[in-house]
């Protein structure tokens, strides 16, 4: 037991390096997911079917298929048709487009939660659709959906462990490497779990703090 503890402590720097990579991958995926999610969420509400239909298909398909399969398609599937994306971008893209589908639904609900009068007031002042979205609707919508987005970010942090299957050396993969050298699977997996927990717990605090910070008085 003491040995297991010692091994884990010794491997901590290596695990934390993995945690850092997990943070990197997750934040880039969140960014990608937010951009995709906002655009797809807006497209879903469009009166033009050429925009809303593809958006619906996108959301339904990505929510209706396993993330693990999506990762395999991007990293192992695409090369078969001549598209080679390196390991890291593959992982980030897979996570980003997947969370984009969930974020799209959140953003759609957020936009719909803003009273119609806001759009009408903005329009009546001569604002274009984009100006109205950028200055009036989205700032209010994002405040409303911050808790839901926070949940999504936390889920994504945990889901990022799936990219370990394409040998990205993030937190889980780092743990597995340590275990393959030391055979201390219990202690190391517990350490890995604890680090994930610290990440998600911190994230949920940050989200809560941000909520308070940006609340409309």
């Amino acid at each position, binding site marked *: 037991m003491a040995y297991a503890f010692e091994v884990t402590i010794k491997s901590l720097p290596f695990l934390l390096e993995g945690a850092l990579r997990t943070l990197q991958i997750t934040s880039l995926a969140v960014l990608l997911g937010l951009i995709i999610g906002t655009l797809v969420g807006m497209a879903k509400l469009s009166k033009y079917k050429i925009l809303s239909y593809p958006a619906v298909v996108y959301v339904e398909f990505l929510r209706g298929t396993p993330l693990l399969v999506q990762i395999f398609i991007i990293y192992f599937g695409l090369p078969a048709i001549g598209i080679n994306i390196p390991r890291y971008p593959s992982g980030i893209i897979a996570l980003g487009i997947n969370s984009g589908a969930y974020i799209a639904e959140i953003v759609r609900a957020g936009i719909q939660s803003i009273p119609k009068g806001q759009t009408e007031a*903005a329009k*009546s*002042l*001569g*604002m274009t659709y984009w*100006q109205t979205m950028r*200055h009036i609707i989205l*700032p209010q919508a994002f*405040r409303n959906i911050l808790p839901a987005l926070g949940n999504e970010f936390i889920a994504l942090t945990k889901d990022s462990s799936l990219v370990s299957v394409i040998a990205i050396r993030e937190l889980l993969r780092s743990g597995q490497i340590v275990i393959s050298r030391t055979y201390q699977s219990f202690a190391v997996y517990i350490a890995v779990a604890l680090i994930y927990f610290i990440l998600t717990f911190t994230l949920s605090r940050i989200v809560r703090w941000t909520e308070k910070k940006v609340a*409309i008085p």
Partner: protein
Amino acid sequence: MNSADSKPILRIENLWKSFGKLQVLKGINLEVDKAEVIVVIGPSGGGKSTLLRCINHLERYDRGKIWFQGELIDETSTDMNVLRTKIGMVFQQFNLFPHLRVIDNLILAPKIVKKLDEKSTMEKAKELLKRVGLLEKMNEYPSKLSGGQQQRVAIARALMMDPILMLFDEPTSALDPELVGEVLDVMKNLANDGMTMIVVTHEIGFAREVADRVVFIDGGIIVESGTPDEIFKNPKHPRTREFLRKVL
């Protein structure tokens, strides 16, 4: 008066509008001259608000023509965003932007729509806030203001765009009775300063005092129109008489 001034600012010809099967406007004709104050009265559901919303194209209409400043408004060739900068609108529910301070509610559109510089826009905003008596509230958020104050800010916000025509859609209907007066006062001053206004309201006192012309709309048509005296003292149409009996 020169010839340019004698042309109506707004001309509406045979305007029809339906929502699904419900025919709301059934051939409205109306001309509004510069500096004229038109008060539109009538029972709810009669099409008053829809008429206003067709004028600045918040609502598309099915048939009919609208000329603004002599130019025919056309779905394909008119830039509706430019049109709307010239037509101010004040809503029943105020519709201030709750995430922006009062001053930012005023300067946002001039800044991003008209691309005016911040400094002159700021000065103008302060001047307008002073005019509606709310300069000291410039850094408050809308939720900290009373309904009457919010509506005065909304009027100032619309005026920031230097509109040629102002539309008021039941501006006092959502207000507590004791707050109605302060909003009507701002509107009176605006009318006295020569603003062209179309006001949908149930405030008959305001109509009597300020309107150049009162238009009674019911069932999607203009049943009767005339000076306040003609409409209120001597209504010709039985529907007008019946409506006035209920509200007076």
